[in-house]
């Protein structure tokens, strides 16, 4: 498609930036919710390109980062078993648990396999009827349809040795929790474009109304982000708080109804603990009772595992937009992608890892002067 690459057009990016500059009259704090957006922003230096009045803080939208320590420890307890083949997305292997990470368990002989899709985990279950195959079903609403389909097919096709360890999280309750915090600084949101591809954006409308914040559903290319910032700033300057869609080439208001239906058949809403943040009511999915034969927590009796977070890591504050990665004393020193102390350093979509990957540990935090010369670099 001609337009796939065009959304990185540098000259056009400059036009959008000058339009933001023309509109802005006072300081605003915006949060991008999704880790993929954080990655684009840091990679292309978008936070340095926009006028200094507009500050971008990074949200909790990296599913790897927010998976709770309990869940990681439960995964370890299951993966250690000799009768289990434990399958997971690759990013989860290096997330530190209380004792070690999955990669270390693998080196000690646990059968842990990286899969690209939950359907691949199902294939492994079909091919290994004598083993119990467990898939670590993490993710936001974007990943839920895939995980739901794997469970549904296992149920329909009678694949009894397939189960899922579910740690699904939902975006709208996380946004509401950020807005309710007494430390909140966020005045507008770039909404998560791919989450909304599945869920639509109707559920964001009551949040915008209740907290009087504009929410602009935004895509992932540099131009998408810049237009999302422009649309949010325009609303803020006009005193509006609406849900707008910057990403109509993919997102529709009602979302993908077929996917929503299967997700609802397989999962139900539950409270969920977020790593570094704590428990947020009704902020996750768990497997429906009818599908309990595929629920790894129940099968392997790991429901009771409870843990404490290490104290040095401030990723909880980073995830809520209260602090930036370079505010952490461990950032780039004790904590690096090779030796992550916290989950936001593990996944490429985590704010700490994104800051590290693009050299933000080598430079001073952004200053108000001299930012006009910041250049956008397109690769």
């Amino acid at each position, binding site marked *: 498609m001609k337009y796939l690459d065009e959304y990185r057009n540098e000259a056009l990016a400059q036009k959008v930036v000058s339009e933001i500059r023309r509109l802005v009259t006072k300081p605003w704090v915006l949060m991008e919710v999704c880790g993929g957006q954080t990655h684009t922003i840091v990679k292309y230096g978008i936070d340095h390109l926009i006028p200094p009045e507009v500050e971008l803080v990074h949200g909790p939208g990296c599913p790897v980062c927010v998976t709770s320590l309990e869940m990681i420890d439960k995964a370890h307890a299951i993966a250690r078993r000799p009768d289990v083949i434990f399958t997971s997305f690759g990013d989860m292997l290096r997330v530190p648990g209380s004792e070690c990470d999955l990669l270390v368990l693998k080196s000690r002989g646990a059968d842990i396999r990286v899969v690209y*899709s939950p*359907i*691949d985990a199902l294939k492994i279950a079909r091919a290994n009827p004598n083993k119990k195959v467990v898939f670590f079903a993490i993710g936001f609403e974007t*990943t839920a349809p895939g995980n739901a389909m794997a469970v549904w097919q296992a149920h329909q096709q009678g694949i009894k040795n397939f189960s899922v360890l579910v740690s699904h999280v939902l975006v709208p309750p996380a946004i509401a929790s950020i807005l309710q915090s007494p430390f909140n600084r966020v005045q507008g949101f770039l909404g998560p474009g791919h989450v909304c591809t599945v869920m639509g954006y109707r559920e964001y409308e009551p949040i915008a109304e209740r907290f009087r914040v504009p929410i602009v559903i935004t895509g992932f290319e540099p131009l998408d982000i810049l237009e999302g910032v422009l649309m949010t700033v325009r609303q803020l300057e006009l005193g509006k708080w609406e849900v707008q869609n910057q990403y109509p080439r993919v997102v529709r208001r009602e979302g993908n109804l077929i996917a929503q239906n299967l997700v609802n058949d397989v999962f139900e809403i539950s409270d969920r603990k977020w790593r570094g943040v704590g428990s947020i009511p009704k902020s996750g999915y768990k497997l429906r009772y009818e599908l309990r034969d595929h629920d790894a927590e129940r099968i392997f009796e790991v429901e009771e595992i409870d843990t404490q977070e290490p104290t040095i890591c401030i990723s909880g504050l980073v995830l809520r937009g209260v602090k930036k990665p370079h505010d952490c004393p461990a950032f780039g020193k004790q904590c690096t992608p090779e030796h992550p102390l916290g989950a936001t350093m593990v996944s490429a979509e985590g704010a700490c890892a994104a800051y590290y990957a693009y050299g933000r540990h080598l430079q001073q935090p952004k200053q108000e002067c001299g930012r006009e010369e910041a250049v956008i670099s397109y690769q």
Partner: protein
Amino acid sequence: MCLAIPGKLIEISHDPHGVRMGKANFGGIVKQVCLEYTPEVKAGDYVLVHVGFALGKVDEEEAARTYRLLEEMNQLTELEVPDL
């Protein structure tokens, strides 16, 4: 891992269990994609794919429209400059 990427659908088929599948090309890399959530798509369409599932169609007209809107931005700004 939350990122979905657009790919061009090159082939549609069904797996032995009757699940609607396809092959999508992501800039030269071809991968299997489950199409159960996108019954409307045909070969040649662009789909947004995440963990092996097509979640929606990428609308070329909307892509072009947004892009043109952005391109026109400066012209509109210039019109707003008051006449001397």
